[in-house]
C-alpha cells in the first residue's frame, strides 16, 4: 500500500535541476495514475449504467413514442396512475414473484444438498463439479427453447413420461401454476450447481474442530448439519438470496423462450407467465409506449430496492436472534 508513496531513491546528486523536472513528473505520475486507471470504469458506468437509469425516471414522466428522439409531452405522474390501475402490471408482478419464490426456495435446498454430497470424499470429484456446473454456462435462449419443448403440453417429453406412469397430461404452458413451476425448474436447472459450488466452498472453510466438538457432544449427522453447517453458511446463503432476488425479479429470457407463441412478449395467451420485464419490453418495443415502459422499469427498480432492504432486515433480525441464543 505504501508502494507509490515511496519516491524513487536512485537520485544522483550532481545534476539537480534536470532531476527536479523528472522528480516532479514522477510525482505527478504517481498522483494522477490511479485516477486514470479507475476512470474507464466510472466513465462507462456513468454513460451506460447510471445515466440511463436516472433518465428512465425522467422518461417515465412523459408520453414518449418509440422512434422519437424527444418526448411528445410532459404528463406528470399520469403513467404511474395508469400503472396502478393496469391489471397486466399486477398480473406480471404476481407472476414474477411467484416464479421467483418457487425457484429460490427449492434452489437453496437442492444446492445445499448437492454441496453436502460434493463435500464427501467422492471419486471423480472435479469431474462431478464440472458436470454439475455445465448448465450455468449454457445459453439461456437455447435452454428456454429446450425446456419449452420438454414441457410441451401435447407432445412434450415430460407429459409423455407422465402418461406412461399413468398421470394425465399437465398443461405446462396453459395452466398458470404449472407454467410457473416449469419456468422455476428451468431457473433451478441453471443455478443449482453454481450455488452448490458457492456453498461447498464455504463449507470447506468451516473449521473441522467444530464438527469434532459436535460429534463429541453426541450430535448425529443431521444435527451437525443443522447446528454447525447451516449457521456457518448463513452469510453465504444471504449473499445468494440477495443476488438471486436482484436477478430473479428481472427474469426475462426464460419466460420469453418458454412461450409457445414464439417471439411474443405476452407470456402466454392469458399472460399467465408474463413477467415485469416482459411487460416492459412489450409496452416499449411492441406497443411503442416508451414512456410507459420507462414507468414499468422504474417501478421495478423501486420494487427491487424494497426487496433488497427487506432481505437485509430479515436476515439481520435472524442474525441478532442467533446472537441472543448464544
Amino acid at each position, binding site marked *: 500500500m505504501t508502494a507509490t508513496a515511496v519516491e524513487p531513491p536512485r537520485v544522483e546528486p550532481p545534476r539537480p535541476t534536470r532531476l527536479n523536472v523528472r522528480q516532479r513528473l514522477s510525482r505527478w505520475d504517481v498522483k494522477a495514475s490511479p485516477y486514470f486507471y479507475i476512470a474507464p*470504469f466510472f466513465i462507462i458506468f456513468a454513460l451506460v449504467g447510471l445515466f440511463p437509469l436516472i433518465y428512465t425516471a425522467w422518461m417515465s414522466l412523459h408520453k414518449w413514442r418509440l422512434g422519437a428522439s424527444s418526448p411528445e409531452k410532459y404528463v406528470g405522474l399520469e403513467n404511474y396512475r395508469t400503472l396502478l390501475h393496469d391489471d397486466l402490471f399486477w398480473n406480471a408482478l404476481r407472476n414474477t414473484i411467484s416464479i421467483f419464490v418457487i425457484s429460490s426456495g427449492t434452489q437453496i435446498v437442492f444446492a445445499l444438498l448437492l454441496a453436502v454430497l460434493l463435500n464427501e470424499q467422492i471419486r471423480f470429484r472435479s469431474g462431478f463439479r464440472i458436470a454439475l456446473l455445465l448448465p450455468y454456462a449454457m445459453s439461456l435462449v*437455447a435452454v428456454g427453447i429446450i425446456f419449452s419443448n420438454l414441457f410441451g403440453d401435447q407432445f412434450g417429453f415430460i407429459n409423455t413420461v407422465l402418461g406412461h406412469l399413468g398421470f394425465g397430461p399437465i398443461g405446462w404452458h396453459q395452466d398458470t401454476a404449472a407454467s410457473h413451476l416449469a419456468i422455476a425448474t428451468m431457473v433451478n436447472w441453471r443455478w443449482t450447481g453454481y450455488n452448490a459450488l*458457492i456453498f461447498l466452498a464455504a463449507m470447506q472453510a468451516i473449521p473441522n474442530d467444530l464438527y469434532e466438538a459436535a460429534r463429541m457432544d453426541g450430535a448425529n449427522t443431521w444435527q451437525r448439519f443443522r447446528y454447525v453447517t447451516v449457521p456457518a453458511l448463513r452469510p453465504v446463503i444471504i449473499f445468494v438470496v440477495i443476488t438471486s432476488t436482484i436477478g430473479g425479479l*428481472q427474469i426475462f429470457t426464460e419466460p420469453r423462450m418458454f412461450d409457445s407463441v414464439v417471439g411474443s412478449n405476452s407470456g402466454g395467451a392469458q399472460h399467465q407467465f408474463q413477467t415485469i*420485464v416482459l411487460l416492459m419490453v412489450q409496452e416499449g418495443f411492441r406497443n411503442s409506449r416508451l414512456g410507459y415502459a420507462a414507468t414499468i*422499469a422504474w417501478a421495478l427498480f423501486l420494487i427491487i430496492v424494497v426487496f433488497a432492504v427487506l432481505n437485509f432486515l430479515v436476515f439481520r433480525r435472524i442474525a441478532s436472534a442467533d446472537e441472543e441464543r448464544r
Partner: protein
Amino acid sequence: MTTLGTTTSRTAPNPPARTVTRASRAPRRRRRGPGWLVYALLTAFLVGSAFPLYWQAIVGSHDTTAVFDSTPPLLPGGNFFSNAARVFDEVEFWKALVNSLIVASVITVSVVFFSTLAGFAFAKLRFRGRDALYLFVIATMAVPTQLGIIPLFILMSEYGWTGKLPAVIVPGMVTALGVFWMRQYLVQALPTELIEAARADGCNMIRVFWHVVLPAARPAAAVLAVFTFVMAWNDFLWPLIVLGPQNPTVQVAIDQLQSSFDTDFALVMTGTTLGTLPLLIVFVIFGRQIVAGIMQGAVKG
C-alpha cells in the same frame, strides 16, 4: 478397513502443533468412503443437468416427426448434418457466429484489461478518495442496470448505432464484478515490494502495470476472461432489442429461427445445439478453472 481407520485416528492426536488441523481432518476422511446413496443422488443430479442438453442433440438429429412419437427417441438419429445445413440456409448463422465471437472477444479483452487496471489501483495504490470510490464500485453491483435499456436504446439510435455491434460491445466493456475480482486477487497476490523495486529501477507507473502487475494478475485474469466470455456470448435482451435480425448474435439468430420455424423442432434444436457447442468447448477446456473461480470468489465474497 475400519480397524485400520481407528488406529490411525488414535495415533493422530499427537502431531506437531502446526499440522493439527490437517492431521485431525485426514483420519476422519480415511475412515470410510461415501455410501452408495451419495453416488446415487449425485448421479441423479448429473443426469438432470445433462439431460436437457442431450435432448436437444437427440431432437436435432432426427426429423421433426420423431418428437411426436408416442415413445420419443432416446438415441441420436442421423439427420444432424442435414438439419445443420438448413440452419445455415434459413438464418444468417455464420454471420451470427462471427458477430458473437467478435462481441464476446472484444468485451472479454476490454473487461480484463480495464478491470485489472482499476483493480490494481484499488489494491495497491494510494490516492485521495480511494476507499469511498471503491465502495461506490461495490455498490453498483447491486444496481439493476438492465432497467436502463429504454434510454440506452434512444441513446444508441441518436448515435446511429442500432443494428451495429458497438451498441452491444460498449455497454459491456467494464464490469464492477471484474474490478472487484481483480482487486481481491491483487491485494494478496501482488507483493508490494515488487512494485517498489520496479519504481526504484525507474519504471513509470504504466510500465509497472505492464511489466509487473499484468504478469502477476494472469491467473485471476484467466478466470475473469472465461466468465466474461460466457456471459457476453449468452447475453440476449439487449442484443435482441438493439441489433435485430439483420445483424444478429447467435442468441438473436436462434430466437429468429424459433420465430420462423416454431413447429420444426428438429431445425430449432439443431440451432440451439450449434449455438451451445462453442460454450461446451470452452467449458471442456476451462471447466476446472471456472469451478475454481466460483469457489474462490465465494470464500472471498
